[in-house]
């Protein structure tokens, strides 16, 4: 199990990266944490003439405050996201989702940009990005552009990032209102990709009525999905009136599961709905305590 030969590039600036991508087109591949790409190379399930290592491009690393929200460089390690206080403070869902990604050794190398660009439908970050309407900043030889989450995940493992483009950063805005967030998933073993999971944010007005609901789902479709039926059902309810199990069941309508060795279509639908309900209950409980504390 050894990778095929390739030419290695270690650029130090985004400009050089996109230059290399423009030059080599489909024959080039960015290498971030390597936690998904290198296994595929080792098994020779994929091969590229040119590997463009992003690990020496300093400008792609780090979390910065951005207009009340945050901007996270694509090469920021998952481990750094996990422990970053600004992330925990402003985008709690990212903080809550991160420990579910693989194991600490994986998170020490794996990057948020790699997770989003790889776009595994069972992966945590894509579901969080979708739920929170995150924005991707994308660079290419012809300049910068942005892609909102709703347009980013095109199909399984396919995103708005073209082969000659580089995902540079991800932007998330903070919720400026009483809110509750929760994340959970079911995986076969500790650290495995999820069979099904949910990322939920609930925001209320001062009177405790839900005026913002964000429900992202993983593992239950060809891409991460939003449970719009659930979101719609929540709007306007008082948090204490919402029956999470009941509302969670609506999520089944928003799913489009794919069966595989680990779970059938039917399983993913059932367990996914259960999880949406449970995570919703946790998020609601969060809002209540926050309101109570505040």
């Amino acid at each position: 199990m050894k990778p095929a030969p390739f030419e290695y590039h270690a650029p130090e600036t985004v400009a050089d990266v996109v230059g290399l991508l423009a030059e080599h087109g489909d024959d080039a591949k960015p290498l971030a944490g390597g936690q998904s790409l290198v296994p595929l190379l080792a098994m020779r399930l994929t091969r590229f003439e040119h590997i463009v290592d992003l690990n020496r491009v300093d400008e792609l690393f780090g979390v910065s405050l951005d207009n009340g929200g945050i901007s996270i460089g694509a090469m920021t390690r998952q481990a750094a996201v996990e422990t970053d206080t600004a992330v925990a403070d402003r985008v709690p869902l990212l903080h809550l989702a991160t420990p579910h990604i693989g194991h600490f050794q994986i998170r020490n190398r794996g990057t948020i940009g790699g997770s989003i660009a790889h776009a595994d439908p069972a992966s945590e970050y894509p579901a969080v990005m979708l739920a929170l309407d995150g924005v991707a900043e994308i660079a290419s030889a012809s300049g910068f552009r942005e892609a909102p989450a709703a347009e980013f995940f095109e199909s399984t493992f396919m995103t708005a990032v073209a082969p000659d483009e580089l995902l540079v950063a991800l932007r998330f805005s903070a919720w400026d209102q009483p809110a509750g967030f929760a994340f959970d998933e079911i995986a076969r073993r500790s650290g495995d990709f999820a069979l099904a999971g949910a990322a939920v944010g609930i925001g209320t007005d001062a009177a405790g009525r839900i005026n913002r609901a964000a429900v992202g789902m993983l593992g239950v479709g060809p891409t991460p999905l939003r449970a719009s039926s659930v979101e719609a059902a929540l709007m306007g309810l008082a948090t204490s009136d919402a029956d999470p199990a009941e509302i969670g069941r609506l999520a089944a309508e928003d799913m489009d599961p794919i069966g595989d060795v680990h779970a059938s279509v039917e399983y993913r639908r059932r367990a996914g709905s259960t999880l949406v309900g449970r995570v919703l209950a946790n998020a609601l409980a969060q809002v209540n305590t926050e309101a109570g504390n505040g």
Partner: protein
Amino acid sequence: MSQTAAAARYVGQSVKRLEDPRLVTGHGRYVDDIVLPGMLHAAFGRSDLARATITRLDTSAAEALDGVHAVYTGADLNSYNDSLRASLHPPESPAPPANMLADGDVRFVGDPYVMVVAQSRYIAEDALDLVEVEFEPLDPVVDYETAAESDHHVHPELGGNLAHDLPVPNPATDEAFANAAYTITETWHQHRQTNVPMETRGIVASWQPHAGVMEVWASTQSPHELQLVGARVLGIGEHKMVVHFGDVGGGFGQKMFLGREDMAVLVVAKLLGSPVKWIEDRRENLLASNHARIEQMTVKMAVGEDGSFLAADLDQLEDDGAYPLGGPATPGAMATMLYPGPYRMGPVSWRARTVYTNTCGRGAYRGPWQMESVAREQMIDRVAREIGMDPLELRRRNVLTPDDLPYQVSTGLLYETTISPKQTLEQAAEMIGYDEFRAEQAQAREEGRYLGLGMALYIEPTSMGMGPLGTESAMLRVEVDGHVNVFMGTGSHGQSLETTMAQLVADELGVRPEDVTLHQGHGSGYGFGTGGSRSAVIAGSAARAAASGVREKVVAIAAHLMEASADDLEVGDGVISVKGTPAASMTMAQVAATAYQNSDALPPGTEAGLEHTARYKAPPTTHSNACHICTCELDPGTGKITLLRYVVSEDCGVLINPMVVDGQIAGGVVQGIGGVLYEHAVYDASGNPLASTFLDYLVPTAAEVPELECGHVVVPSDTPGGHKGTGEGGAIGAPPAVFNAVADALAPFGAYPNRQPLDPNAVLSLIASASDE
């Protein structure tokens, strides 16, 4: 056994392992760590199709690649095939053609059809990409339940897919069934799993021309099987086949026999005259080493009004895959014969069949016939449920008690008086707090929580004393400085033999364990190696006997030198002293120096030197037994099973090293947990394996397993140390215990599981289909 042996100082103690200092610091030496001058690397090209004719095979581009030394196909190597039979496989029984490389057609996904030898493994794999091959696909035989009737033949040479059919009718069962209050039938299924040693298979072979010597380093459980079969393959004598035994990263049965690839490497190393290394990669290991447990048993049991077991009728079917590792043996026949287990079962009739399919070959996996316990213990829980009796009570009514022993089982087995199933059943029930758990379970159900408890009680035939398995030897030498080297035919690959054998020698000879080094492989005497729970009893008894032989001589020499009576001497920790007068003493080193370097000072007629070789022949079987009980909670929303507690009460006789015994049990238990809840080497209907990486073949992690609580009942066996084998038991008891726990948790839903794996998907669909009914 020596009557004068020092009191046990080390046997029975959790002596820290002698192998650990090198292993915890990364200084073990596994086969991949062997590097020889000029060594080349092999890689195999393997079939992507389950069954196909090779219509074109062109290796010229691969051969032309820089760094490639040779490319071989079946046509180049298969003339050596006649000699490939494993030692346990009788020459007269029909077997698939033992091709090293597929020749003309491929018979499972992973079937090797080309072998590249190159400067590095990287280049060897580059060359495989350049091999041009075309296949004409044929309809594969994938489903073993219908394989026997299929018109497509896995091995056209054999004219059919039925490998074995052994019917053993017993008219006595008819009457029992006629008089039974209950007749209950179920078919129990296990599913395809694989051993997954963390170190894959591997071998380094180096030929010395003119000397005619083949020197080999290999990841093996049985260095002598490698020496014997390897020599046969190469057409050389065993005296020219040097097998070095280093550290081995697990095997669980997979490394008992030579694989086709191992033999190809031996042959190619000789053809090329350069050392060749092959290290299997994980995908090859998951697809093409060996699979196991692909079997089902239909059980019909006759049960009396009071729950007594009156008779059983069994029909066992097992999948051998295409090329079973070690030959097409019939574990199914063993599984049926052992079915009665630790119970009064009445007459038993059975049939056991094995079939070939276009899948990876079956091989031994820890407890290769554990289907007997799986089927029986799951059946007993089913019977309990059907007749409305508590499963512990049902077992209590039928279990063999000390008063029943010795016990002649209707299937031909004879249980010695030294088994203790009743005691382990009671100890385990006590440890888990059986009645308290049932109360807690009832309470939880009222709260909408689903708890389950499962138990399994079994008797395991260990250390089987027949055929090539029957004996082991130990050659023990006290060196001039008083330290001890002992050479044995074992193949320790995690069993801690460097420590446990040293403990036995230490007590018997009167030295400290750290003064003893165990050498395996080259230089040791024939033995079948380590597997089948045989090393403690068979090899251990040989080690004892060798030590005892040397000890007698040590005492005689010391008595002569000290002018004391041999009867007055005691030996311990390398010091020979007069009982009650510790000042009057001499050291093992002094005795040894005299024996080798001053032999004129020896007692008259004493041969110089301090060494002794002993071979131990085991009794037909030494039975060990155990009871496993585990509890679980089922999440009806996700189907996830969480194991709560796991207790084992076992009797392996006298424990040499309790820490090691508990470790062996724990490892086996977790393999059993993995088998029932996580692992599945699944194929699709076209014979494509779907679990070819560690992301799909799910070995449990620490987070999936509960803390294990071990209790010990010690009834010494009649073998010299009083030990019984314990290497496999964990993997025998765990599958039915875990299965029964999940079935118990599912009972309130009206679900009746009869197959594994019980993964979340299966659990939810059991609940769904039960509620549909």
